[in-house]
């Protein structure tokens, strides 16, 4: 439906999970939550179409969406969890260092903050080598990238795509591979990446200047810290943090392949519209 469904190769992962061609996922009948957020599961500027499902990650998001008037929110869990089930870990993990995700802006909202101060704090805090994973915008900014390269290895998982064009459908795969290599995952904001890391066996940490999105209400970051204290700090308890992350990603809301195919509108042939029979 919306091109955000294909961001990060989410639709592709779900197609693979449903036994369909991951290179050519069918159109999803609805809106797939493409990143962790504290709203109704949609991106801030996603033009929602009434009557269509928002496939949200967790019950908490479903309840929030309902309270915002979104009646069709349906819990399916994060696509990342489906990828985890498709790619179980091969053997005992050999992990080292930290993968650090600086809070990023996006195409229409840049982030304001002092990258160098953030780097310094990360270097001072992290016990081992750091891999900085930049969003593609920062990655392609030579000045920002150079600052991070002076402090560690710098990577980018890929381009999330736009209007079904140039989607790096290996995005999540690359992220999973990287997360499995690291002992810790850290960021200056609670984000999808930290949650992914926490359920992939990394010890999560959220600390440092949360920075600010252009036009963003600063109270939001503080609200998030109050709501999920178990995921914040330089050394949160990994067990509690992992359980909390699993809940946010909707680990208990994951759907079986046949049920998911029906929900996403991927059954063949497509059902004929009908109303509930009454007699």
């Amino acid at each position, binding site marked *: 439906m919306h091109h955000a469904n294909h961001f990060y190769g989410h639709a592709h992962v779900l197609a693979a999970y449903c036994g369909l061609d991951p290179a050519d996922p069918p159109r999803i009948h609805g809106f797939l939550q493409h990143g962790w957020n504290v709203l109704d599961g949609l991106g801030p500027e996603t033009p929602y179409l009434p*009557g269509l499902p928002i496939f949200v990650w967790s019950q908490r998001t479903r309840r929030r969406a309902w309270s915002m008037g979104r009646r069709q929110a349906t819990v399916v869990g994060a696509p990342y969890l489906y990828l985890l089930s498709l790619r179980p870990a091969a053997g005992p993990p050999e992990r080292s260092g930290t993968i650090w995700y600086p809070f990023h802006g996006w195409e229409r909202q840049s982030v304001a903050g002092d990258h160098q101060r953030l780097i310094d704090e990360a270097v001072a805090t992290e016990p081992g080598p750091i891999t900085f994973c930049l969003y593609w915008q920062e990655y392609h900014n030579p000045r920002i990238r150079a600052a991070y390269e002076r402090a560690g290895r710098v990577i980018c998982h890929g381009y999330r795509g736009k209007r079904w064009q140039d989607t790096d459908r290996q995005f999540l795969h690359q992220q999973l591979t990287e997360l499995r290599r690291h002992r810790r995952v850290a960021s200056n904001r609670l984000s999808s990446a930290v949650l992914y890391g926490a359920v992939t066996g990394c010890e999560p940490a959220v600390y440092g200047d949360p920075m600010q999105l252009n036009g963003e209400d600063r109270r939001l970051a503080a609200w998030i810290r109050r709501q999920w204290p178990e995921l914040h700090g330089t050394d949160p308890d990994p067990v509690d943090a992992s359980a909390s992350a699993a809940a946010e990603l909707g680990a208990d809301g994951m759907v079986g392949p046949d049920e998911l195919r029906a929900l996403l509108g991927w059954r063949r042939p497509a059902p004929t519209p009908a109303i509930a029979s009454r007699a």
Partner: protein
Amino acid sequence: MTTEVALIGGEMPAWSDRQHPQRPPAGSAALVPLVDAVARQLPDGGEALVAGPHADVLLDVLAAHAPTTCLVRAEADAATVAARGVRVLCGTLPKLQETGRYDLVVALDGMGRLCSVEGPQYDWSESLRALHRTLRPGGRLLIAVENDLGVHRLVDLGTPTSPQGDEQWLPIGEYDETKPGSPDRLGAHLSAEGWSLAWLGAAWARPGQPALIAEPEALRAGPAAALAATAARAAGTAYAGHPVLSDPRRLAAAAVRAGLGVEFAAAWLVVAHRGDPSAHPPSATRPPVPPVLLADGPVLALTRDERGTWHRSVLDRGTPTAGRDPARLDGPLPNGRLLEELLIAAAVRYDARAVRALLSRWAAWVGTLPDAARAYATVDNVLLDGDTPALLDPSWRSPEPVATSSAVAAAMRRFADTLMAGGYAHPWPAVTDVETLTAVLTGAAGMRCDRPVPEPQGPLKPVSQRETEEQIRSLRQQLADTRDQLLWHERQLTKREQELARARRTIAMFDGSLGYRAAKLGAAALRTTRKAWRRSRR
């Protein structure tokens, strides 16, 4: 053998209560064992009076035990009853003179059809006194008292105080203040009037035609799930295809589950003795009826043994039905909660995980059933005792073996229909057609459903206004949503058409223009020159 009809006065010549389209005479298969049990307690030579219109089967049961007299107000009914060889009095109750004659009075049609249009119009209490007078000391009474707040009233589109039919010449409804409105008040009233209560049963789902008769203790502490399902089924059958305010199945199940099976019953059935209670201790006079009687085709008795286990036994196999063997109903009654209720409880919590767990467990179990029993393992016929499923009614077998996948898909089709028609909240709110919901539920049960599942062939359901209202609301919403979606698709189409137009302009520019042709010629000349240069270097 036809007997003579005694006209006592006030009889109605052009009338029949037995031919009433909406309100047949009192009588149902579940009432037969009750009447039989009470009649068996009659003393030798004792006589019975049946007051009001009653079904032939009840008259026959009584007549088999004792000389029976029937009091009806309509002459046509009197003639019909007389044709069965029963003594008949035809007229209005206030004209009844037979004081102290009978040992048993049966009035299972209530007191509402005893007075004709002629003469005094007795209220409930006066009617009871008139019947009281006809009994010998120690004589017994078996009556039905309609509950004005029974489920049958709550779902009724009409009300007795808005008269419609010819028989409603005095439409006082719940404003007959002499009629007790609760079992407690009924007991108190009888006691005050010189009766001693021997037995009370709650009757579901229609006052005169109960399919379930249960003692209060059984409803309070008995097999709640089985009783709730039975009450719901009785209500569904009683109102099949009838327009109602809200689905009586839902109300019946909720009432019985909540321990309010007596309070919301359609009627209370009472056996009482005329005279001093101390002379008739209930233990000695209680009719030998099982705690629960139910009639769903066969007539069944539910009884509890000393260890507290409930047993089901077939009292009457009923009319033979293809595919049904009532003998399978004999034995211990399965325990536990109805799977459908557990599923709905999980669905309204949006707990898809719990729904999946229940359905997967159930689907695996369906596979272990005999081929011919699978089709009947629908979620409204399965009890789950902890983790152990059992068929509530195991008497049915299909003529052809049914594959597990077909049985599961068909049962999910039926449950999808229940969820949608009932307007229940569920974890898949964007699914608005039964077919997709069937596929989702079948998937949740761990199976695939790619083909449409035909609508289940079952009895008609009640046509509920509340559910209809909910469907209209939902359809309006869907229509509004669809309109918005159409506009969105149009905008998308416009965007794509603009993109296409731009692409076509680009193609045209490079494909047909002079400049493009010149560039193509230049490129060809360049290629030729380069090849010539390469050849010259070899």
